């Protein structure tokens, strides 16, 4: 296949990828969009086979490895529970990053196969592109592994900080730039390998200081990185499909990170530099005094909600941990039978990744037109009888609106306290991730339901 023809086909698959993202503007068109994406991928792979035109023994091996990888992927995709989606996505990011590193290594070891020159005399531009691809890919890989371990609970979600951390990261970043510079001058493979190793280390150090609830930002950021890595490789291989995809994914991840930061009213750098929970916990411990809270049980909650005319559910990460989404849906069904109007309010950073709550509710068969974003529903709290907060905490804290001293001041929060009564399902009075006491616990219209989210919801269903 001629180079021009295959370039046109790569353009087509790039366009199909754009359409795949475009489809996600509404759930109705999204499934079709996914097929566009699959078609784009098939075109890109087939065209690559045809343009390489080598159908010898190597081709058989490629097919075998494709099938091995493909069946592992398919197995994972079918078996994974929806609650594990954040760590799955982090794991997948790490694979893209590592694949980018491998392709870059391979291009460095055998540049003539890619038409980039010969060993020891690789074209300057290609060398810069492949080393950038390798460095970003390596950071994506090791960073995503750390994110995966934290999300999976294998590693503690608490921020790991030490003195001079940011200084070391800065030094590593500068070393990477120097290594790329010297790599271009010397073409030495030792420098290339050190570049890869240092990037792996940088990836680890970048993610360890970031705590659990900041994971939505981290995942989006790594998503973005995996795109830039792909684009770097795309420039090396002079492949339009890769360049287009890399740019799409890169900007997609960047926008998601922006939305997540906005949802916490924090700057991107503030999140990346980490240590939100770390600094504030100390001051919080001192100011802890016993304030009275109203304590309720499942029967009280059932009574309140049954006699309400409208209920708003506010889910958070705790719902995901307790896997309470199905019980929640049963509760809502029972309420609807009693003529109660129920809707769901989702904060942008609820959960551990963008859209986390929406997927869980969709899994529990909650129709997506009952689920609303913060701006859409926030005014409705004033007219609602009961707000049922399940597994959310910081995103409902009224302190964010009233106390300029609070670290979460200015963060957009759900106006839960405006509803006539608030039911707050929580295991204990402990503060949330931000380490800040939630003012909502002590309000007169708040009834605390101390229990596991799932158990409490099930009990409420029973007494309904």
């Amino acid at each position, binding site marked *: 296949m001629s180079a021009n023809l295959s370039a046109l086909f790569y353009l087509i698959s790039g366009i199909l990828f754009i359409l795949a993202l475009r489809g996600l503007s509404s759930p109705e068109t999204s499934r079709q969009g996914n097929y566009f994406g699959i078609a784009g991928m098939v075109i890109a792979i087939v065209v690559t086979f045809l343009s390489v035109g080598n159908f010898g023994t190597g081709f058989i091996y*490629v097919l075998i490895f494709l099938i091995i*990888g493909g069946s592992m992927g398919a197995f994972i995709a079918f078996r994974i529970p929806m609650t594990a989606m954040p760590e799955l996505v982090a794991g997948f990011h790490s694979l893209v990053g590592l694949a980018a590193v*491998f392709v870059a290594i391979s291009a460095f070891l055998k540049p003539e196969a890619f038409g980039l020159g010969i060993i020891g005399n690789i074209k300057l531009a290609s060398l810069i592109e492949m080393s950038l691809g390798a460095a970003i890919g390596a950071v994506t890989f090791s960073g995503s592994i750390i994110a995966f371990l934290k999300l999976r609970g294998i590693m503690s979600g608490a921020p790991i900080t030490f003195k001079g951390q940011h200084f070391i990261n800065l030094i590593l970043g500068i070393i990477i730039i120097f290594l790329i510079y010297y790599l271009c001058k010397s073409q030495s493979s030792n420098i290339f390998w050190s570049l890869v190793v240092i990037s792996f280390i940088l990836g680890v150090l970048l993610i360890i200081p970031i705590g659990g609830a900041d994971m939505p930002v981290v995942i989006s950021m790594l998503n973005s990185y995996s795109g830039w890595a792909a684009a770097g490789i795309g420039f090396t291989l002079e492949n339009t499909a890769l360049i287009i995809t890399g740019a799409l994914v890169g900007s997609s991840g960047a926008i998601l990170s922006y939305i997540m930061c906005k949802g916490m009213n924090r700057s991107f750098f503030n999140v990346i530099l980490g240590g939100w929970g770390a600094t504030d916990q100390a001051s919080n411990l001192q100011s802890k005094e016993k304030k009275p809270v109203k304590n309720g049980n499942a029967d009280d909650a059932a009574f309140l909600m049954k006699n309400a005319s409208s209920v708003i559910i506010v889910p958070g990460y705790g719902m995901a941990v307790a896997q309470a989404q199905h019980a929640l849906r049963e509760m809502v069904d029972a309420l609807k039978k009693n003529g109660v109007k129920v809707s769901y309010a989702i904060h942008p950073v609820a959960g551990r990744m963008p859209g986390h709550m929406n997927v869980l509710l969709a899994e529990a068969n909650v129709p997506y037109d009952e689920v609303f974003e913060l701006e859409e529903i926030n005014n409705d709290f004033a007219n609602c009888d009961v707000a049922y907060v399940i597994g959310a905490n910081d995103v409902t804290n009224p302190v964010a609106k009233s106390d300029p001293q609070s670290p979460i001041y200015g963060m957009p929060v759900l106006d839960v306290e405006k509803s006539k009564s608030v039911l707050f399902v929580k295991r204990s009075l402990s503060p949330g991730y931000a380490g800040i006491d939630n003012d909502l616990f002590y309000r007169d219209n708040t009834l605390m339901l101390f229990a596991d989210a799932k158990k409490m919801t099930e009990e409420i269903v029973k007494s309904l």
Partner: protein
Amino acid sequence: MEIDPFIFRLSIFILSIFVGYYVVWSVTPSLHTPLMSVTNAISSVIIVGAIIASLAGASENIFETSNIFGFLGIILAAVNIFGGFLVTQRMLQMYKKKKK
């Protein structure tokens, strides 16, 4: 003077960033998780690099170091392609409208 082909690729790259910017802002927030998994899947188009790495300029020995890295790249990218698209499909299947 002729324009370096690199400039054309750079133009495609920058225009695609703009396309991505506008397309992604129009994605509804409730589909942000599928957005991540599908961008994951499509960024695995890096498999074309891995295929070239394992096939192109193949000499007698198909298990040279560079080919092996290519093969590894293929496995990783394939996990992602199949896993990414299928899990997206599975998620999107769950988004239903209210039964009237």
